[in-house]
């Protein structure tokens, strides 16, 4: 926004905020933050042209502006509607909005398979959060859910078309970040699907960012596929010198193994800005190839929301009590009755799941049974 642009006063859920002209209601609400900000499944502030598709950010405008105080006749998509001076918006204070949003969630879930136990996105899925917070428990849909032919997108990206909600974020990402977009939405209506028409690998640099922008589990990291659940891995901020991107990433680690690398996310689930102030998209090399701790300079554990399942069983600030046995018993070591690692079949040191390309299969475990 240019210097000296007029500031508009807008009241959202009885909280007044001043924003420059041209700001959308959604961004004004995000400026207030908290529950007032409407959820968004398709709008992505770092992608131009995104938004207006999923209808989860519907709000009620009860007063159009100071000059024209008539309310807007219908609920509006807050990601595409700009604010006016003196506008009054109702989000969570309007029962109409909450009801409409529950309907939108039901529509989004019509064809969404309930395979969260299998899906790698579970635990950080926006659709999971959305349906938990705004949806209804049941569904009234009685028909077969749509299915698609499996479409292979290469060694990096796994596509599950049945989970897609057609938000178009990945299309914008490929358009705006990579040299050439090779996938798109084919067909119409119920048959609309993300595909490459002629089966083709997605290998353009920076194409890995479609994984981060995907709000559901439709596009997931194939190098992380089925390796672990996100809530068992620990997010750690790290960086490296990368000639192509900022190199500022989040490692998802378990012990000393790097299971997954993603860009850092902000509180809205969008890519965070880097320390240089640019959007922190990361390149394919950083995301898929650097799965060793030695590749990275670790900054420290990422801040995880207390409410998130990712913070489950992560103990922060624990002070391990000192071993007293040796002092009391004149330097004698305590006798271990069992070393769990010698008995346990899980987390074998010789099998590095994080270094296997793609998901592990039965033979990956059998090889290690022999030696």
């Amino acid at each position: 926004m240019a210097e000296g642009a007029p500031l508009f006063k807008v009241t959202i859920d009885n909280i007044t905020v001043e924003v420059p002209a041209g700001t959308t209601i959604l961004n004004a609400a995000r400026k207030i933050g908290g529950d007032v900000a409407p959820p968004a499944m398709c709008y992505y502030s770092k992608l131009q042209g995104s938004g207006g598709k999923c209808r989860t950010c519907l709000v009620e405008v009860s007063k159009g502006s100071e000059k024209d105080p008539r309310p807007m006749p219908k609920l509006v998509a807050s990601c595409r509607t700009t604010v006016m001076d003196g506008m009054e918006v109702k989000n969570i204070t309007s029962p109409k909005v909450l009801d409409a949003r529950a309907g939108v969630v039901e529509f989004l879930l019509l064809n969404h398979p309930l395979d969260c136990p299998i899906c790698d996105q579970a635990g950080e899925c926006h659709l999971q959060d959305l349906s938990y917070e705004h949806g209804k428990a049941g569904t009234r849909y009685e028909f077969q859910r749509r299915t698609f032919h499996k479409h292979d997108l290469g060694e990096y990206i796994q596509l599950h078309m049945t989970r897609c909600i057609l938000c178009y974020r990945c299309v914008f990402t490929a358009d705006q970040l990579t040299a050439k977009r090779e996938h798109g939405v084919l067909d119409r209506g119920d048959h609309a699907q993300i595909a490459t028409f002629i089966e083709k690998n997605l290998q353009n640099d920076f194409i890995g960012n479609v994984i981060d922008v995907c709000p559901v589990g439709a596009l997931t990291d194939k190098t992380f596929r089925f390796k672990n659940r996100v809530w068992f891995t620990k997010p750690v901020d790290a960086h490296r010198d990368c000639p192509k991107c900022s190199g500022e990433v989040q490692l998802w680690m378990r012990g000393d193994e790097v299971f997954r690398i993603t860009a850092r996310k902000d509180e809205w689930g969008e890519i965070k800005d880097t320390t240089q102030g640019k959007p922190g998209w990361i390149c394919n090399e950083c995301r898929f190839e650097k799965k060793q701790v030695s590749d990275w300079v670790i900054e420290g554990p990422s801040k995880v929301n207390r409410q998130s399942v990712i913070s489950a069983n992560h103990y922060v600030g624990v002070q391990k009590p000192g071993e007293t046995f040796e002092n009391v018993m004149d330097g004698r070591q305590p006798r271990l009755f069992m070393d769990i690692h010698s008995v346990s079949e899980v987390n074998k040191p010789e099998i590095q799941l994080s270094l296997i390309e793609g998901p592990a299969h039965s033979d990956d475990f059998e090889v290690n049974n022999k030696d």
Partner: protein
Amino acid sequence: MQSLTNRAKPVDRRPMNFMERMYLPAVLKGMSITFSHMFKKAPTVRYPDETRPFSPVFRGLHVLNRDEEGRERCTACGLCAVACPAEAITMEAAERKQGEENLYREEKYAAKYEINMLRCIFCGLCEEACPKDAIYLSETFAPSNFARKGFIYGKKDLLIPDPKTEAADLAKAKGTN
């Protein structure tokens, strides 16, 4: 001080009378209680030969379930492990390959699944968390063992017999044969 229950009795400190000093009536009274038990039904059972019926909500040793076609139900979603307050459950997942559809119900399955029975407190939260009806707490105890390593239960200890190929074993395990 006000008593809480009104059942407190003051101690009787009078000197004993003649009958009390003889002790014999008190001994006989006590022995009559002892011998009367010989004619009552014994409350104990001779355990290994006889067992008491379990309550239907008893939470014993875990089993990993199979579906009617003998495929493993567990998809290694990790919800049991995250629900476990004792952190006793660990697992490693793998992708089902072509040709393994008769072994595993879903695309993803638990290649390794382990319960540390030394840590387990048999609270049943894993059973409650399971979205796939895969883990159940059965009506049996974890058998005793001399070594601690015998309490690390892997998949081969937990999985129920295949209802198609090992129907007799399954019936035996269920106690229905």
